[in-house]
Structures are given as C-alpha cells and as structure tokens.
C-alpha cells in the first residue's frame, strides 16, 4: 500500500499548508454556525435552551465534537509546524527592514492572534463547557455576558479571531490554489466580511452587558431577531 500521497500532506511545505487551510476553512465555517446559534439568544430563553437540548440529545453531536477537536488539532499542529520552520528559515539579521506593502496587520500577527484564540478557547471551555449546566444554558450565557470581566475577555477573543480570519480566510483559498483575477477580489472581500462578522460575538455580549434586553423587556418589547 502506497501512502506517499498521505505522507506528502504532512511532510511537504505545500501539503502542510493545505491541511492548515482546509482545517482553517472548516473552523471558520464552524464559527459562522456558532455565531448563528448565539443569535438564538435573542429569541428568548425557551428557544435557546430548546436548541441546545436538541443539540445535546442528538447522538451525532459527540461525533461532531470529536471531529471538531480533530480539525482544531490538525490546524494547530500544521500551523505550529509551518511557523516553527519559518522561524528557523526566516531571513535574520537585517539592520534595517522595511515591509513593502504585502503584509497586513492580520497577516503579520497570525501567530499572536492564534495564541490569543487558543488562550481564549481554553477560557471559553472552562467557563461554558466544563461547568455545571444545571442553571440552564441561556442563564449561564447571559449571566456571563453581564460580567464586565468576562465580556472584556470575550471581546478580546472575538477581535483576535476577526483579525486572524481577516488574513486566514483569503489565505486559505490561495493556499488551496484558488487565485483567479475574476474571483480573488470576491474571495478577499468575502474573507474580510467573515472576519468582520466575527465581531458579532462581541456585539451580542455587549448587548447583554448594557442590559438592553432587560430594558426592552421593561418597556414591553420582545426583541425578535430571528423569526
């Protein structure tokens, strides 16, 4: 059995980058779904909890979770590997060095935003995943969103994610060989849009921190975002 083609995905520069790109796109997709889920908060406690219950009772969910973990690990390992090699091979010792306009804030900070996201993820899992869920998910989430400390960390995490994706999304397409004068501008714009969308996480948390939901309820409005 010749598995050279599998090995090449790990042992070659382009293979590793492809794994990183595919896993990155999957993770980006996951984040969009995750954001959509968070929007359910606006529909009220019952709807949100019902969705979470549905999710948790589905036997496929643990499999998806393991899959997600796998994708995440693949992204981290290939990313770390690429970066380690780059660190070892990077031009070193220029007295003066000017960037020529190719780099963006997003591209230059990938490693740092990655570290930020990872740290945030750990915090996120500790606060939401590996805790007592008896109070109900809606309560757990919204009460966290009313804590300034939590929201500050949460906003930092989502901004890091936005910055990461501002480079990562379009970069993944380039890595997978999708570059065409017709489509590349759209892909770049789309990537930026996805990145900007990630600030939605921050906005939702701010919504609860500012207590807009409570004020709205007092005023007798039911805010419905998703019909």
């Amino acid at each position, binding site marked *: 059995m010749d598995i*050279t*083609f599998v090995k*090449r*995905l790990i042992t*070659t*520069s*382009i*293979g*590793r*980058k*492809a794994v990183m790109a595919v896993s990155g796109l999957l993770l980006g997709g996951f984040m969009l779904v995750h954001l959509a889920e968070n929007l359910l908060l606006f529909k009220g406690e019952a709807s949100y909890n019902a969705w979470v219950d549905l999710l948790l009772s589905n036997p496929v969910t643990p499999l998806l979770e393991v899959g997600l973990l796998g994708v995440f690990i693949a992204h981290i390992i290939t990313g770390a590997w*690429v970066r380690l*090699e*780059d660190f*070892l*091979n*990077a*031009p*070193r*010792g*220029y*007295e*003066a*060095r*000017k*960037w*020529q*306009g*190719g*780099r*963006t804030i997003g*591209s*230059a900070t*990938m490693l740092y935003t990655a570290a930020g996201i990872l740290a945030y993820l750990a915090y996120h899992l500790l606060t939401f995943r590996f805790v007592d869920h008896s109070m109900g998910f809606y309560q757990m989430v919204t009460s966290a969103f009313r804590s300034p400390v939590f929201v500050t960390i949460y906003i930092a995490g989502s901004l890091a994610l936005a910055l990461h994706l501002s*480079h990562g999304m*379009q*970069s993944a397409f*380039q*890595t*997978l*060989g*999708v*570059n*065409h*004068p017709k489509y*590349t501008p759209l892909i770049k714009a789309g990537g930026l849009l996805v990145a900007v969308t990630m600030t939605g996480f921050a906005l939702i948390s701010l919504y609860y921190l500012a207590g807009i939901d409570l004020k709205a309820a007092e005023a007798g409005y039911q805010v419905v975002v998703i019909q």
Partner: protein
Amino acid sequence: MNSSKHFSVIVRVWRQAGPVEPGKMVSYKVANVSPDMSFLEMLDILNDSLLKKNEAPVAFESDCREGICGTCGLVVNGDVHGPDEHSTVCQLHMRRFRDGDVITVEPWRVKAFPVLKDLVVDRSALDRMMAAGGFISVNTGAAPEANSIPVEKDKAEEAMDAAACIGCGACVASCPNGAAMLFTGAKISQLALLPQGGPERAARALSMVAAMDKEGFGNCTNEYECEAVCPKQVKVANIARMNREFLLANLFSKR
C-alpha cells in the same frame, strides 16, 4: 540634468571576510557622487578609493547593470533592491539620495543563500531546484513544427509573465519566512500554462516542491511581500497555481 550638483553620502555596508567569519557593518564616506550615477557606480567609486588605500574593496555582484541578468541584489536602507518599485538595485540611481544621507547596504540574509563574502551570497539552491524539474524533456531535433501546437494567446502571455523571473532571489530575501515560493511557482506555472509542458506537469510539481523543501526555504504564509518587491512583477497567482498543481498531482497522478 543636474550633473554639476555633486554630493557626499555615508555608506554603511556589511563586511564579512568569508562564509564562516563574523561580519559587521562598516561606514564609509563617498564623496563626489553625481545624481546621474547609478547606485552600483557609487559603490564602484567607493571600491576604487578603497583600492587606492590598499584596502579590500567591498565585494558585491552585478553583471548586466540593466536589470535583466539577476546577478545583483542588495538591501538598501531596508528595501530589497532599493527604494524604486519593480526594479533591480543596478537600476537605482543616486538622484534618489541627498547630500549627507546615510545609506545602509546589506546582503540577502537568507539561510538558504549563505554569504560568501561581504554582499555576495550563494544562490545555487535555485539552480538545484531547476535541475529537479524546471524543464521540458524534449531532445534536440525531436521537436515538431512549432506551429503544430497552438497556444491560447492569453495563456502564452501568462506564461511569459511567469517566465520573466530573473532568479535574483529578492522574493526569498523579502519573505518574512525566507520562502522561495514565488521563484518555484513562477517556473512551475510557466511550464504548466504551456501545452508543451503538459506531459510532465504532475511530476514537475511534485519534484520541484520536494527540491525546494530540501534546500531549507521557509513556508508560504501568503503575505505577498515577494510580489511587492519582485523586479519583474511576478504575481503570487503563480504560487496559487503551484499549490494547485502540487495538490492535484498528489491526489490524482500515479506518483
């Protein structure tokens, strides 16, 4: 023309006696610089004045001095190939500088291009990559009549855009990761775009990428600094094409 307005500059230049010796920046004053002089002619003057003092001149390489041979390559004040866009350092002229300017001159500082002396580096890695597949295997005399293989004009132009690479190594020198993707991508693209290169497309992509990895270049993180400094405006679309060629070859060829 303002050839009468001669001026002086301070050149801070990397001096390194040999591949394993430590190097350092050394400052020299160069007087009587004409704005019409090329940057390398200014270094010629510096070298002639060093020679007259029986000091070793600064080793640097250049040949055609018109931006096509790819021999020259310096980092000037942090700019790969100097401050002018889309040109090699031999095309830079002193009218870009002012009296009293301090000009920092460094070699390509890339692991895969070790310094031989002063500003001269060894770029033979690029030749070894070419030997790994940067060609079309047709023996002399075996070629069919040239017009028997039509090539779509747009494709031919794109192939020419990629083929314009002069192998100077600026893409590697400017890459935050020391990657040679633009060089390799350009050659793989040129030969993949032309029907003549078709029969060896898959093998070429696999072997050239393997050779590139072996030489100790970095990975691509799609920051496009290479495209920004390339004197021949080779586009990063060529890197995407290389990625595509490689991934498809890996998945679908028999190799």
